């Protein structure tokens, strides 16, 4: 590659690393808590770390170690992983047109690094490239992705190390519920999402006794359908001039 191009590639790579650094303040503690939780549910250290290396998706890893701790069978783990990571399909679709000129190896590598934070940075760089940096945004993407991946692996490792030393009486498994409360509550911004959450929560409690942890899947599906129905009710009410859904 010509010198000027190499120069702008290096600059974009550095810009990506710099852009993701402030976000690590939020990511690293999550990695730490995940590591501690993985150990406190009895998952062997190597498996806890392998999940960070291979899955590299915080919420689904939290959920998986919680499920493994309660003895859920593998099909439930795979289904819940797919459900909770479905959003990556949207990221993938929204990045695809920008990545079309890239060689296949770039696509395979960058896709692997696309967690929420990296997606947010990459898509905004593609949509608003800096002057002179057009066509080099994939280096920015790579810089942000590798930095975040490295931070996730190291914070997980520290958490796994610490988790082995914390006695079970500390009840650190409760951080799973607390983490999810912290993510759930601020997301309840409208009636449809509140309905989705309430329905899923109630169904989950009522179907707790179902074998193979099937209750979780049934509850999540009910919640999603309930949310969509309420949303459609609103949309219908608006188009027909109604004042409230169901009126």
């Amino acid at each position, binding site marked *: 590659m010509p010198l000027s191009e190499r120069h702008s590639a290096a600059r974009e790579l550095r810009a990506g690393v710099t852009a993701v650094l402030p976000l690590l303040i939020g990511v690293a503690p999550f990695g730490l808590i995940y590591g501690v939780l993985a150990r406190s549910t009895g998952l*062997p250290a190597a*498996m806890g770390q392998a*999940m960070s290396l*291979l*899955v590299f*998706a915080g919420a689904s890893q939290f959920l*998986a170690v919680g499920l*493994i701790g309660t*003895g859920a*069978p*593998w099909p439930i783990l*795979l289904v*819940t*992983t797919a*459900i*909770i990571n*479905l*959003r*990556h*399909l*949207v990221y*993938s*679709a929204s990045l695809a047109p920008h*990545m079309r000129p890239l060689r296949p190896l770039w696509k*395979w590598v*960058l*896709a692997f690094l*696309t967690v929420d934070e990296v997606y947010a940075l990459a898509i905004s760089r593609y949509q608003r490239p800096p002057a002179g940096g057009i066509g080099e945004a994939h280096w920015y993407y790579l810089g942000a992705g590798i930095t975040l991946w490295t931070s996730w692996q190291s914070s997980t490792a520290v958490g796994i190390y610490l988790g082995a030393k914390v006695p079970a*009486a500390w*009840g650190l498994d*409760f*951080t*799973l*519920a*607390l983490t*999810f409360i*912290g*993510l*759930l*509550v*601020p*997301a*309840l911004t409208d009636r*449809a999402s509140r309905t*989705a*959450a309430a329905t*899923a*929560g*109630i169904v*989950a*409690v009522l179907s*707790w006794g179902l074998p193979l942890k099937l*209750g*979780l899947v049934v*509850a*999540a599906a009910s*919640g*999603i359908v309930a*949310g*969509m129905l309420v949303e459609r009710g609103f949309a219908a009410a608006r188009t027909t001039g109604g004042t409230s859904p169901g009126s």
Partner: protein
Amino acid sequence: MSSPALWLTIIAMGLITYGLRVSMIILFGRVAMPEVLRRALRFVPPAVLAAIVLPELLLPGGTFALPPSNTRLVAGVVAAAVAWRTRNVFLTIGIGMVLLWVFQLI
């Protein structure tokens, strides 16, 4: 699950997640995402999170329990109020854990 089964499960989880990440980038232009899926996605986080949180709080250890014996429910409700007011996950975790420890001491 046995250890080999757990290893295979973790690898499969990785493959599923990677498949979702890479799919549209590789298949771009050849498949469109169904509209119903796009609409459903918005409700995945609230539904899944609530489906995990509520049983954790109401059925600690797998049996239904109310306060005062169910200290996790109290700590969880306070943590939810903290989350609503501050929108800060780490503060939510911190206050929830401290409350749980305080209840254990009482």
